């Protein structure tokens, strides 16, 4: 398996080609991904001032003509002193976590059902899971606004069949955020679960029941442990983006729905406090490093055990 691009006659033109193919995406990412991130880090260490741009420069000219580097940890201290931010981080994690668990309970039986369907049906069901995934995220969240409104379709329906006699307060509450999260990210949960359950060797289940295991025991002792990689992949794919979510809490949540993506947005655009917004972003990245590293490790283990 000698690499295609390495093992070549080192004529000048070939090396030029190879380097060009590496250099173009490399420099694009350095300039538009890594550099911006370092700038966020830099600005999170500056003081806010009323100017354009609204923060103190990293290099400052002294009176005697020399230069000095100016940094401050005030923004980070501020994040930990003002309980709003701590509460917001915790509440983002809580909202993302509970939605992920609920989506797992809804998604697992669906993925299982699809994986056990006979072939033509299975492809159609899978297509039906994929289609909402391609439809605009914003529009899918928007669809719930008309349903959850106080005078909306769900309340109308519930009043009509007589379950309730007062319309429920649903839109602009945490309940609406949970529904929106589960709805938007359900395909992310179902697809990895399906990919895993589809590979499940049905003979193992038959062997277990032949040996006298009850149906529940077969599920608990065979199916569930074998589908663990799918469960972890699905949960990570949903939990990680859900923490930083902005659109769902803004459209469906109330004023008291605290999510970090929304606080960052407001801090930047409404308060115009760029340094604090940058510090919020850096802490959010640190918060995400843990689940991402865990996910990567599990994925690598998967690869090793397969090969």
């Amino acid at each position, binding site marked *: 398996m000698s690499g295609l*691009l390495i093992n070549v006659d080192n004529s000048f033109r070939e090396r030029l080609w190879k380097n060009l193919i590496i250099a173009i995406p490399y420099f694009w990412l350095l300039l538009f991904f890594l550099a*911006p991130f370092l*700038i966020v880090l830099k600005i999170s260490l500056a003081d806010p001032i009323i100017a354009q741009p609204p923060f103190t420069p990293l290099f400052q000219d002294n009176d005697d003509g020399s230069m000095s580097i100016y940094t401050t940890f005030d923004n980070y201290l501020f994040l930990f002193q003002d309980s709003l931010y701590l509460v917001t981080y915790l509440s983002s994690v809580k909202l993302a976590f509970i939605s992920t668990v609920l989506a797992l309970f809804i998604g697992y039986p669906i993925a299982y059902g699809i994986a056990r369907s006979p072939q033509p049906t299975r492809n159609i069901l899978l297509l039906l899971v994929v289609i909402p995934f391609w*439809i605009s995220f914003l529009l899918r969240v928007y669809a719930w606004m008309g349903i959850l409104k106080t005078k*909306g379709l769900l309340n109308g329906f519930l009043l009509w069949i007589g379950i309730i006699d007062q319309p429920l307060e649903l839109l602009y509450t945490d309940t609406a955020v949970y529904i929106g999260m589960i709805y938007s990210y359900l395909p992310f949960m179902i697809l990895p679960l399906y990919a895993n359950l589809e590979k499940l060797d049905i003979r193992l289940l038959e062997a277990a029941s032949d040996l006298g295991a009850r149906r529940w025991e077969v599920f608990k002792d065979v199916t569930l442990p074998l589908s663990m990689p799918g469960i972890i992949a699905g949960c990570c794919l949903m939990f990680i983006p859900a923490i930083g979510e902005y659109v769902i809490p803004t459209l469906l949540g109330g004023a008291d729905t605290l999510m970090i993506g929304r606080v960052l947005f407001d801090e930047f655009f409404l308060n115009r406090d760029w340094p604090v917004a940058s510090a919020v972003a850096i802490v959010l990245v640190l918060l995400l490093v843990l689940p991402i590293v865990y996910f990567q490790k599990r994925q690598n283990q998967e690869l090793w055990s397969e090969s």
Partner: protein
Amino acid sequence: MNQRSTFIFTMLCFGFAFLYIPIVLVIIYSFNDSKLVTVWGGWSIRWYMELFSNENILNAALLSFRIAAITATAATIFGTMAGLILARLREFRGRMLFTGMIASPLVMPEVITGLSLLLLFVSLQNFIGWPSQRGMNTITIAHITFSMAYVAVIIQSRLTEVNESLEEAAMDLGAKPARVIWDITLPIILPAMISGWLLAFTLSLDDLVISSFVSGPGATTLPMLIFSKVRLGVSPDINALATILILMVTVGVCIAAWIINRQKESKAIS
């Protein structure tokens, strides 16, 4: 039917109802004559007529489609290069950094990508005077950056699926690497490039948060326009717009699925 299949069947029905009822309701209510969005006032296509005479919406749609087309094409080119590097180049200086920079945009929250790119554009403007104005160009750059990572992953996984023997054989027979890539590798990854292009197009068309950060005065994309209207509540012409976009996506996905299925079948026969 035993107890468990009944349970699974119920969950399937419930799950798909959950996934599709909101979408179906938007489609039905886009034909609602009433100005009150949740009161049924009979069938009509007035909101569609209104939509096509609304210049703001048409301009925003045009801008979004232009950005999406440029983004998808550039992201496919850069992403294919990146995917080739990741799959076929075992070692070069800075490979770790490169892998990290490809994987990170996939998990980075949109608010952070948006914030950091805006701060970059502001700094660049201060130092070298470019970009003199934020708008379509800055949005396109931002979209290319995050969607090329998705394309790279698709290309990489396709390339690791097929083994290198074809490429090696061609090289043993004396073909130059550039020729091998052009004649052997590219045809193999063409389907992956097409799905990458479609994914990048949809991601760009769909993006709200990153565009809101890096856009400037005068450049309003379709999601930005929808968002500013929808923040104030449900509106009937957005229902009509949503219906058109949903139908476009559904038809596109079904055609793509049909083509992929047919390819699989023809492969199974040969």
